[in-house]
């Protein structure tokens, strides 16, 4: 697996957010995107994922040296971010089942229980997402992201809203996935960007 960016740039109207970002990541490597508030960390993540169109340059997702198709990218990418919302009027388990179906997976009750337990939400799968605390919501986003067994995992402020227990779970997850995944983390927390093998500093 490979993720590479070539001279990637993004502007909104006249305002340049970032330019000439180039890097290449192989399976097992990770990139920490750091920079002050407003420096474009989230914009870079969304541009890499394909939710924003770059103003310049290109990015490539490859598997076995072949570019991934649009559907392949969708099924191999996961994103966890504070601005990402799940469905308020669906329960935790229903959210999991819905996104599993979109990802071409069929999730049994036992499997969803196991995933929920993995992120510390055992026994809360039947509760509506809107009744979750912000930390629990963040945990469910991890559950949705991880059930795909992502090849490319994008984390924006990965431990925001999480208590010490939640942060511990995230670190464990990152350690477990590190070997099989390409990881991109947007953060300013020293403890988080030290987990990455490469670093991209924005806002200079």
């Amino acid at each position: 697996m490979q993720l590479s960016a070539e001279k990637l740039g993004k502007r909104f109207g006249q305002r340049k957010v970032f330019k000439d970002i180039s890097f290449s990541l192989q399976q097992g490597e990770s990139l920490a995107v750091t920079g002050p508030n407003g420096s474009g960390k989230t914009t870079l993540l969304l541009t890499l994922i394909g939710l924003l169109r770059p103003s310049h340059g290109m990015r490539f997702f490859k598997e076995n040296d072949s570019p991934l198709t649009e559907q392949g990218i969708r099924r191999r990418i996961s994103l966890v971010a504070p601005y990402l919302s799940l469905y308020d009027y669906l329960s935790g388990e229903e959210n999991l089942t819905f996104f599993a179906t979109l990802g071409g997976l069929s999730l049994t009750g036992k499997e969803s229980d196991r995933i929920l337990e993995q992120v510390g939400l055992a026994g809360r799968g039947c509760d509506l997402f809107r009744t979750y605390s912000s930390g629990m919501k963040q945990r469910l986003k991890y559950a949705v992201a991880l059930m795909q067994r992502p090849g490319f995992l994008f984390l924006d402020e990965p431990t925001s809203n999480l208590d010490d227990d939640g942060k511990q779970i995230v670190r464990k997850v990152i350690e477990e996935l590190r070997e099989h995944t390409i990881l991109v983390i947007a953060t300013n927390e020293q403890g988080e960007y030290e987990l990455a093998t490469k670093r991209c500093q924005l806002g200079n």
Partner: protein
Amino acid sequence: MVTEAFAVFAKDIRLELRSRHALNAILMFSVVSLTVVSFSVGQAELSSRLLGSLYWVIMFFSAVAGLSLVFIREEEAGTALILRLRADPAAILLGKLLFNLLLFSIVTVVVTTLFFLLTDASAEGLALFLLIVALGVISLCAATTLVAAIIARASSKGALFAVLSFPILILPLMMLVAASESALAGGAFAEISEPIQGLFAYSVVMITASFMLFRFVWLD
């Protein structure tokens, strides 16, 4: 793609059953406007042309009142982002279109029943009228679902939805009014075959165009 589309459709039904935002918005509007029309008309005998026009005016504004919610809800709840990330755009459009068809069909059953109860519309050409209504539901949903996706990320969505929908819907509305007039007057199928063909062609064109354009509307 079909499995994903049905997942989106089933999810929207579940959300609607739990929140009832769209159904309540459209039903309240259509029932209130139909009641106001029936009170204002009173005992006056209306021509089939006027009855057909009134029916489709109510249906048009009912569609404008609620069919955009299917995409606005995703944007306002912040769930559009993960849906863009996870689902095939064509599956999203198909799921949303099916949901709008179901929602508007429920509203149409209520409005049509009340329309025949509250006005002196003749049930003589009922079968033909119902055929026109079914084609009307499909053509209104086909056009408004794509417009809903276009306006969902804009500000002043409600006004924009009505403004953008009107020019696209004027053609089918004219055909629907003309066909309804003949059907309510007890006309034969031969008299309305032309507008029925027109409505069928319009729906096919709108659905095809929607599937071709939606990717750009949704992802850009």
